[in-house]
């Protein structure tokens, strides 16, 4: 070594070199780069339905996510580190969803994965999340998390599940609309959850399900199913998802006109659909479940006002830049709230990097009460760390003069059901 130094570098040259390196390190740009290592972004892999059956939801999930990230970053990020979203289209397909998680974990070194609505994508992706030991925060509504089907790395803290939603609707329907209900629902798992959980809750209330009309998922015309609805139906409970929802409600209107049974629907049947669309006038007077009321209500909270403004949604639930671009307001708040929960969990656990993933999960599991706030604009919630599922208020709105007006808000307790799993007993 000495020989090499002697041979090639004189002492003067060496001193010059050290001085040069010192001056470069002292330059402002270099200092900020040095600091950047400790304030490198927290990477959140965002599994988004950009294509496929869930594209309408994906578009708004994306906008809500970007808005939440901006708010969090503007207020100092998480533990002093900014959030960075790495978005990947899951094609609303389970295989592609699992591939997206692999990319987040192994290609981008994401700290956590987040997002996505459709249940089959979540169920197809969750095993990989468990294998990759990647915390996977889903905004899916499905009962799959709380049912115990998934694993300790999969959590749903920002949106309630379908089982709690439908059982909370049963008392209102029986007391206000009628005791004889016919259910129209898509003939796949999401519809079956409605069929099974609502039936059980409604019958336990003393109501009666007089007919169940499943509609095959490949169906694009619905008129032939409506004659199956019995004449003595007092309430028609409807829920539909996918690109054919507008056709479904329009044909329902053509079938009944202004007559027919009282209507109670899940907003999914008209989510992202402009309610002023000709042919939907018959919905006036009907009731809807909404996860979060699309129209700004008379008792709108400051938190909803702030959230609506941040995402760019007007008081009618449409984009501020295009009144025809109607949001998926009943669901997308879940992205906003989930990101705030991730922030809180990381701060609580002192999260500093991938090695702290288990600590993050434990921190979220230990959460219980989530009060109404800017972080939870949809309403207060109670998180069950054992089942990895949150519980919250549900809203029933009535279509009045073309707008959905709040008619009833359930209590959080209305949505409770016995635990079906304890994920905290599973090892990491």
């Amino acid at each position: 070594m000495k020989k090499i130094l002697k041979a090639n570098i004189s002492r003067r040259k060496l001193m010059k070199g050290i001085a040069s390196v010192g001056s470069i390190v002292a330059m402002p740009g270099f200092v900020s780069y040095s600091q950047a290592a400790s304030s490198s972004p927290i990477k959140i892999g965002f599994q988004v339905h950009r294509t496929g059956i869930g594209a309408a939801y994906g578009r708004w999930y994306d906008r809500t996510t970007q808005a939440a990230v901006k708010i969090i970053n503007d207020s100092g990020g998480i533990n002093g580190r900014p959030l960075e979203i790495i978005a990947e289209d899951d094609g609303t397909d389970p295989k592609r969803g699992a591939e997206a998680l692999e990319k987040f974990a192994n290609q981008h070194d994401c700290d956590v994965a987040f997002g996505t609505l459709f249940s089959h994508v979540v169920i197809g992706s969750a095993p990989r999340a468990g294998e990759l030991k990647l915390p996977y925060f889903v905004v899916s509504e499905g009962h799959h998390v709380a049912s115990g089907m998934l694993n300790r790395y999969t959590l749903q803290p920002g949106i309630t599940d379908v089982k709690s939603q439908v059982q909370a609707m049963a008392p209102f329907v029986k007391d206000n609309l009628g005791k004889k209900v016919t259910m129209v629902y898509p003939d796949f798992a999401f519809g079956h959850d409605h069929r099974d959980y609502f039936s059980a809750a409604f019958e336990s209330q003393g109501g009666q399900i007089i007919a169940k009309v499943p509609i095959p998922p490949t169906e694009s015309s619905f008129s032939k199913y409506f004659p199956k609805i019995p004449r003595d139906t007092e309430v028609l409970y409807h829920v539909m998802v996918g690109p054919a929802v507008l056709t479904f409600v329009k044909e329902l209107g053509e079938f009944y006109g202004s007559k027919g049974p009282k209507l109670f629907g899940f907003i999914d049947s008209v989510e992202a659909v402009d309610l002023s669309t000709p042919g939907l006038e018959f919905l006036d007077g009907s009731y809807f479940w909404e996860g979060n009321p699309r129209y700004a209500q008379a008792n709108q909270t400051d938190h909803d006002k702030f959230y609506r403004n941040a995402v760019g949604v007007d008081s009618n639930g449409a984009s501020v830049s295009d009144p025809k671009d109607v949001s998926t307001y009943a669901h997308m708040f879940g992205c906003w709230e989930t990101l705030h929960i991730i922030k809180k969990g990381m701060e609580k656990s002192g999260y500093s990097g991938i090695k702290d993933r288990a600590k993050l999960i434990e921190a979220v599991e230990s959460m219980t009460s989530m009060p109404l706030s800017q972080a939870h604009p949809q309403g207060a919630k109670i998180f069950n760390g054992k089942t990895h599922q949150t519980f919250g208020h549900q809203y029933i709105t009535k279509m009045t003069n073309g707008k959905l007006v709040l008619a009833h808000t359930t209590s959080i307790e209305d949505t409770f059901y016995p635990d079906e799993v304890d994920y905290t007993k599973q090892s990491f």
Partner: protein
Amino acid sequence: MRKDLILHLSALSVLLLLELLGIFSEYHQGNFARILVLAAYGVGYNILFGYTGLLSLGHALFFSAGLYASGLSIYHLDYEIGQSIILAIGISAFISSLIGFLALRTIGVSFMIVTLMFSQIAYLCILYFGSITRGDEGFVIQQSSRIFFSLDLSNPTIRYYSALLIFSLCIFINLWIAKSSFGRVLVAIRENSDRALMLGYNVQSYKLLSIIISGTISGFAGACYGILFGYVGASFATVSYSIFPLLWVLIGGAGTVLGPLVGAIFMFYLIDYASDITDAYMIIVGVSLLIVTLFARRGLLGELRYRFFKWIP
């Protein structure tokens, strides 16, 4: 040693060395495990389409038959991995015999439509019997059920070697068929069915056998996919999963043993890299496929065979 055997052994050796020498990052290791199992499905498809000349639009039926046979037997009946794969092979063989027997009453476009319809029936049955199959949501095969002779198949390295073994098995079956007199008759049927008939071959029997082999390999790949990746769902029975193997085979080279692998790698990484560039990645994918179709009409490997290496099977 035969040139074709050297080529295929070399290809498999490269895939083995990539893992043994640790050249793969964890990400690409996972991708290739998936690609190899899907390419095995493509190999099954290629036997019917590439060698026999029968274009099926219903192969998702065979893939999902294997997927569900193994998955449901593990999920509901606590079958061991080995038992579930044997069951999946048996059921895939039975279903492909049945579908082959019925669909071969038609030819050409009608054959495509009939296979598509059978596949749609299978898809709707999966949804209809949702209480058993968990419908469109599907179900998870838990990690504890994915142990084979004390090997944890959810371990990335074991999964990769398993996928490579599955693919190797399928391509050697394909290679053996391609070089056998049976395979030559299939090619004769593809080139001129009437002439093969005139020469005294029982064309219908050969076609039926081709469907059974093709469907069974596809079912085997489906069973392995569910076991290795832990998820069984109805989306694998949709028409998209009948189109995918067709694309892999067309891009890689119909009637070439390694074509489905080349096609599957190309498609996978095309989508992967394009989605890094833009949200509208399907435009890049579409344009790329157009270019490949225009300038390599026989597929990538097929074009190489046509221009330079006529001995490639």
